[in-house]
């Protein structure tokens, strides 16, 4: 599978602090080096303090850049770092052809933590995805990251998973190159490993 359309709309979603901006920069940089025109827009929910965060990455071959927010119903890929945020994005930007790659580990919003609201079960989430999108991949990226000793690696595991789906017209080595440029020293090896584990989790 390889998306070849104009533009490719990718939304990376999660909760403030999960590092989705880093993913958008890694991917954006790699695509730009391949000659694409990139626009990355960031949208925050009510607050940056643990609120919803989404990066809209718009990948195009045209010269005039696309706008920083994907129009309704036009997200080709939704990469979710947090399952309920993935659902939120599907309901606002998804369409029948949307592909979803999502982490399965929830970060409970305050309303859930204090018992006022129920968090959707994994079965419920999967049922919704079956109804609404073309295909969904589920990765327990947080556990993989914790296995590597650091929950903060979740975003890199998810980046690996995204590349593992081969949805994007970009080779995995291009992202690995960006990882090597971004991380130096001891951090490099563990980030490459996180990427690899994410990659193999979906292939």
């Amino acid at each position, binding site marked *: 599978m390889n998306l070849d359309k104009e533009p490719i709309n990718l939304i990376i979603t999660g*909760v403030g602090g999960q590092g989705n901006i880093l993913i958008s*920069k890694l991917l*954006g*940089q790699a695509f*730009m080096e391949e000659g694409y*025109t*990139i*626009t*990355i*827009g*960031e*949208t*925050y*929910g*009510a*607050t*940056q*303090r*643990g*609120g*919803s965060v989404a990066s809209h990455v718009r990948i195009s071959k*045209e010269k*005039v*850049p*696309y*706008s*920083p*927010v994907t*129009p*309704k*119903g*036009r997200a080709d890929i939704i990469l979710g770092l947090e399952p*309920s*945020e993935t*659902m*939120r994005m*599907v*309901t606002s930007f*998804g*369409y*029948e052809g949307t592909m979803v790659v999502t982490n399965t580990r929830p970060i*409970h*919003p*305050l*309303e859930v*933590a*204090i*018992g*006022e*609201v*129920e*968090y*959707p079960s994994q079965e*419920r*989430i999967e*049922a*919704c995805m079956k*109804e*609404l999108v073309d295909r969904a991949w589920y990765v327990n990226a947080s556990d993989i990251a914790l296995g590597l000793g650091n*929950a903060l690696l979740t975003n890199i595991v998810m980046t690996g998973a995204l590349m593992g789906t081969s949805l994007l017209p970009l080779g995995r080595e291009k992202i690995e190159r960006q990882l090597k440029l971004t991380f130096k020293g001891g951090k490099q090896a563990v980030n490459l490993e996180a990427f690899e584990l994410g990659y193999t989790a979906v292939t």
Partner: protein
Amino acid sequence: MGIEINKPGSMELLMGNEAIARGALEAGVGVATAYPGTPSSEIITNLGKVAKKMGLYVEWSINEKVAVEVAAAAALSGVRSISAMKQNGLNVALDFLANLVLSGINKGMVLMVGDDPGAQSSSNEQDSRDLAKAIDIPILEPATFQECKDMTKWAFELSEVISNVVMLRSVTRVSHARGNVILGELPAEKNRAHFDTSKKYRGIGGVAAGLHQAVHEKSKKVAEIFESSPFNFYSGPEKPGLLIFTCGSGWLYTMEAIRTLGIEGSVGVAKLGTTWPLPHKFIKTNLARSERVLVIEEVDSFLETNLKEFVVDHMPGYHKFYGKTSGHTRPYGELNVDMVMGAIASLLSMEYVALSPEYEKKSREVAAAWVPPRTSQLCPGCPHRATYWAMKDALKKDGRDGVVAGDIGCYAMGVFPTGFSQINTIHAMGSGMGVASGLGKLDIFGFKQPVLAMTGDSTFFHAVVPPLLNAIHSEADVVLVVMDNSGTAMTGFQPHPGTDKGASGEARPKVSVEKLCESLGVPVTKVDPYDMAATKKAFYDVLQDKGKTRVIISRRECALIRANMQLGPIAKMHIESEKCFGDDCGCNRYCTRVFKCPGLMWDKEAHKARIDEAVCTGCGVCVGVCPQSAIVAEAIK
């Protein structure tokens, strides 16, 4: 890799604000100043990082007025300068700016204002263009990341041609988005400052009217220069059925809407990078293409109104304008591609449906109902939650229905349930103390409620000192609460006079809030909000101390600073499950329902409270919250 890389012609993926900072560097800027404010902060953050290497002076000023004054000093002395702020900041700076445009400057000075359509991180969504026009400042509006850089550079040149300030107006979606930017040259020369003392820059002494006239004359010259600006251009058929006039972020939305609808052949787009004063020839040539004009812009109908006025004077007769006044777009909130497609489709009598109604229905039924809300909250371990908790307790005990005048910062969350809904008023930087100063004088009208004003440390320096002096001198019966968390947390921890670092990390003398207050003769009480019992008592005692202005400093570093410094938890928290009666307790989940720290969770299976170890910072504040004393802290040594 930063904005200072010396590789002309190379392509970088830059954030709009980084591109603006790069543009300033390419223009040979010498001085950069700002007061932090989303979405403008990254300009000075990035310039601060390269200050040493590039020989710049960069500062986070105490407020926007001072920021512009410091930048103007450079521009008066032959050094190019930039000052950045958000839309609210322009209000603060306006007093000085309205006079600066009369005196003029001697070297290039750019005023960068980041507007926030939709007020995503602001208390309003003011359109700063109206204010700039009111005081005759030329306006440039970048539409792309490349333009952010190129226009900034050009703005300096224009500023020098007219010896006056030029405004660069960006919006959140441009400033905070990222895209391709091709770099230009960095200049080699060093800046040299000298103030020519034979010159007088002034508006007083009966010269203001004459200077005002000269500024109007200059405006004509600016409009003339704008005729040949590369940032104004037309694309589309010679004689389109519909002509769109647009600027800034509106252009990206418009171009995408046209591509998506596939109507390149019938709709023309006149893009203006220079929105005030209007370049007459450019406007005339393009308006002549079609009688039907749709204007796409954010937020107010600035361009639309000015175009209409232009038409009345210069091309009276037959044009029909669509946009905000006709209801085709909204005169408030953010634009997006869907809205622009909707406006175009309705004018062309086209059918456009973003999403099949079946999909929308299905998505609402199967998913949307299950998506839990994620609302604003104070971080786990936030010292403000503790301060508000103590305040709430003291006000309740006091029983006189105390009024709390709030201010701008993370602690503004005090209007919402996670700050226990303590704040009653919230407006502009420093207004909490100003409003409180007024409330504290209402006793002659029978006002008997105690009054508290809230402020953070950065806001204290920015705008609270004058109203504090006002309250002291007028003997207002007020308690000023300075919630000092050692940084400008809301915008990313920029330094301020109360911290010991400058914009580039250099050592700076610290101004002490307590010494300043004490020197004014007001009683000052200091508390650590993590010490809940002492804080509650201090609040109560200070409230009883009627009749004069007094200050409480509630000091504890922001939880994010603790996290960044890897200070680790103060205590290990747990719930003694035999003491927690859970759902059977009369408290009705008091800890989670009312106290609302994200570190506390309700365990559905056990029907009891639980500490979420991944989230809890161990601040220990929740210990006293549980009526059964089930929440326990074990000190970590």
